[in-house]
């Protein structure tokens, strides 16, 4: 019964006309930017983040959630229509979605993606509502060594999921941790690695860094990849509505994808990417005729889209209950919460129940809005896709510059963006994935603080991490993950699964 009362509280907060308005604006802008080829959800969120700063805390988080779902859905639209996945989790959608579009079923593919996302989002919202209070209560059992161990596991998981070299991903994490601890040392008040700049005393702005890496870095990457960034939309849009038989065909894959995504999303470092890949692989295994996959199988769109959305949603659970962002998106959300004066963690649910449940309710409302918004507006998104990249990138650049400048009206943030834009481009060319870097940057200060606290309490005995059952289990999992990706046989399989 608590669940219903809590949800009622949440809906009474989310359904105020102001919050509904910001949820709508968030979904609209998120989809608008997310549809543009070459811009994934992290870049979209980083670009739109400054717009939420002036709002009330709950309105700003609700708008942000709307932006996130919009960006994700926009990414799927681009993947289906022009085979240009904006981010890795919609790569899978592009496989069969684009083939469906080429077979003249673009409308059906888009509505399948929308329905799958909606169904998965609704169920995942219920799961969060039911699980979050329990996990938040469990989180009170978490002490410094456990937090440290959980962060290690999360960072290692992001290595496992990064494509390519383990060494490079580890290096990116450590570089991220180093950038994360620039600024005043919380314990002693000493300035560290600030190069004598007063602007760095509060640390490096994560939004400026994210915009540099994901905004400017991606523009340069697209420009040098020749024609890849340009639109080539040709498919015809026909009926959007699925037939009764289509609905029956997609129901089971959606259910399976949702279940898988919900569970995998909670894992640190998991989220949308792992969920969609696994769901696709599972459908292919279960299908009576696996050869249909890759040629426009409706299950190949329904299951990954459901898993992707469910995973995206439950990946916010570690942030909301433990205060630990488990992927780049959650990291940006954490940054936004801190700017609003909310310290993410188990206390949010106790001290600010209206905000917490309002956010959860607005997740579901965001999903409803996406369906309502996208079915009539799909023609507009299609028109957007016909804009050549040549005309888009200067506009994206201008939005990034204005967005970063409006953070605190300091030109220093612009220099930070330029420096990390250069880094982002360089790293991409050297096959170093930027996602682990950003996660490390967010976790850096928390990791150091918990390490210090744990060591202080144990009087300098590092065995404390193995004596507490929670931290020992988490570290063991991290070790297993490292060993697994290092073994050549499993490595090969992972690379195949990520590429397939």
């Amino acid at each position, binding site marked *: 019964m608590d669940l219903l009362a809590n949800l009622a509280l949440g809906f009474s907060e989310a359904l105020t006309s102001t919050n509904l308005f910001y949820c709508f604006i968030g979904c609209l802008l998120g989809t608008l930017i997310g549809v543009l080829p070459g811009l994934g959800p992290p870049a979209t969120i980083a670009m739109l983040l400054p*717009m939420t700063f002036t709002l009330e805390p709950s309105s700003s988080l609700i708008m942000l959630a709307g932006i996130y779902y919009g960006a994700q859905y926009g990414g799927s639209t681009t993947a289906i229509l022009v085979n240009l996945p904006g981010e890795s989790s919609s790569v899978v959608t592009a496989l069969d979605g684009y083939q469906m579009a080429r077979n003249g079923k673009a409308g059906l593919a888009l509505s399948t993606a929308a329905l799958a996302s909606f169904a998965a989002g609704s169920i995942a919202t219920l799961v969060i509502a039911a699980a979050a209070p329990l996990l938040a209560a469990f989180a009170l059992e978490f002490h410094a060594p456990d937090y440290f161990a959980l962060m290690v596991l999360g960072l290692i998981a992001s290595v496992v999921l990064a494509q390519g070299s383990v060494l490079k991903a580890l290096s990116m994490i450590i570089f991220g941790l180093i950038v994360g601890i620039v600024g005043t040392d919380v314990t002693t008040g*000493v300035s560290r690695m600030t190069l004598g700049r007063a602007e760095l005393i509060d640390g490096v702005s994560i939004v400026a860094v994210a915009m540099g890496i994901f905004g400017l870095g991606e523009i340069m990457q697209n420009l040098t990849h020749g024609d890849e960034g340009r639109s080539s939309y040709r498919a015809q849009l026909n009926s959007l509505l699925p037939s009764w038989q289509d609905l029956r065909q997609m129901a089971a894959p959606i259910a399976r994808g949702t279940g898988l995504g919900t569970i995998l999303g909670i894992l640190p470092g998991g989220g949308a990417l792992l969920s969609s890949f696994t769901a696709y692989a599972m459908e292919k295994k279960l299908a009576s005729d696996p050869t249909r996959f890759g040629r426009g199988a409706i299950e190949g769109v329904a299951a990954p889209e459901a898993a992707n959305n469910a995973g995206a949603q439950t990946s916010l659970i570690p942030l909301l209950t433990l205060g630990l962002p488990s992927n780049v998106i959650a990291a940006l959300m954490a940054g936004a919460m801190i700017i609003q004066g909310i310290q993410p963690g188990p206390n949010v649910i106790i001290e600010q129940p209206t905000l917490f449940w309002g956010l959860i309710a607005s997740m579901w409302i965001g999903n409803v809005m996406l369906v309502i918004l996208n079915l009539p507006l799909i023609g507009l998104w299609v028109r957007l896709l016909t804009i050549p990249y*040549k005309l888009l990138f200067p506009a994206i650049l201008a939005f990034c510059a*204005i967005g970063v400048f409006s953070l605190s009206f300091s030109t220093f943030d612009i220099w930070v963006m330029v420096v990390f834009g250069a880094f982002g481009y360089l790293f991409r060319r050297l096959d170093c994935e930027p996602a682990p870097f950003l996660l490390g940057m967010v976790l850096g200060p928390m990791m150091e603080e918990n390490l210090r606290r744990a060591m202080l309490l144990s009087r*300098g005995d590092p065995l404390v991490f193995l004596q507490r059952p929670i931290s020992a289990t988490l570290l063991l999992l991290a070790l297993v993950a490292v060993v697994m990706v290092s073994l050549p046989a499993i490595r090969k399989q992972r690379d195949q699964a990520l590429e397939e």
Partner: protein
Amino acid sequence: MVLRRPKDLYSGVLFLIIGAGTLALSGGLPFGTARSMGPGYFPTVLGCLLCVLALLQVVKSFFGAPDPIDPFNVATARAAIGVLGGTVLFGLLVRQAGLAPTLLITTLISALGLRGFGVKPAVVLALVLSVGCSIIFVQLLGLPVPILGSLFDGQD
């Protein structure tokens, strides 16, 4: 010894510079003990770890399956100059010149990032972005940046 994987070598060198830089910047900070860590403890440990990982990458670049790097050529230089240069100019100009003239220049410079952009489309796009962003961000959203900055005060 043949360099087989140039990408590993370059990333190794890059991380080595970052690691060494971290050690140099945090070297003067009190290190403390394992029980009571000083502000220099964590950065020093991270710097050392990064150097070790970097050296492993350098070593690895001479072994394993060959993996050539995409050449850095005119196109890469153009993209970097257009995008990064345009953004730097935005930072230098926006306070004094105001949003509209700044965006005009930024867009023209960023158009250099792509070969064959053409003068006419670049000028049209610059005008559209400059006017459009001034209206949306300054007039409608109330961004506290002048459309025409103090540079233009005495002139008209």
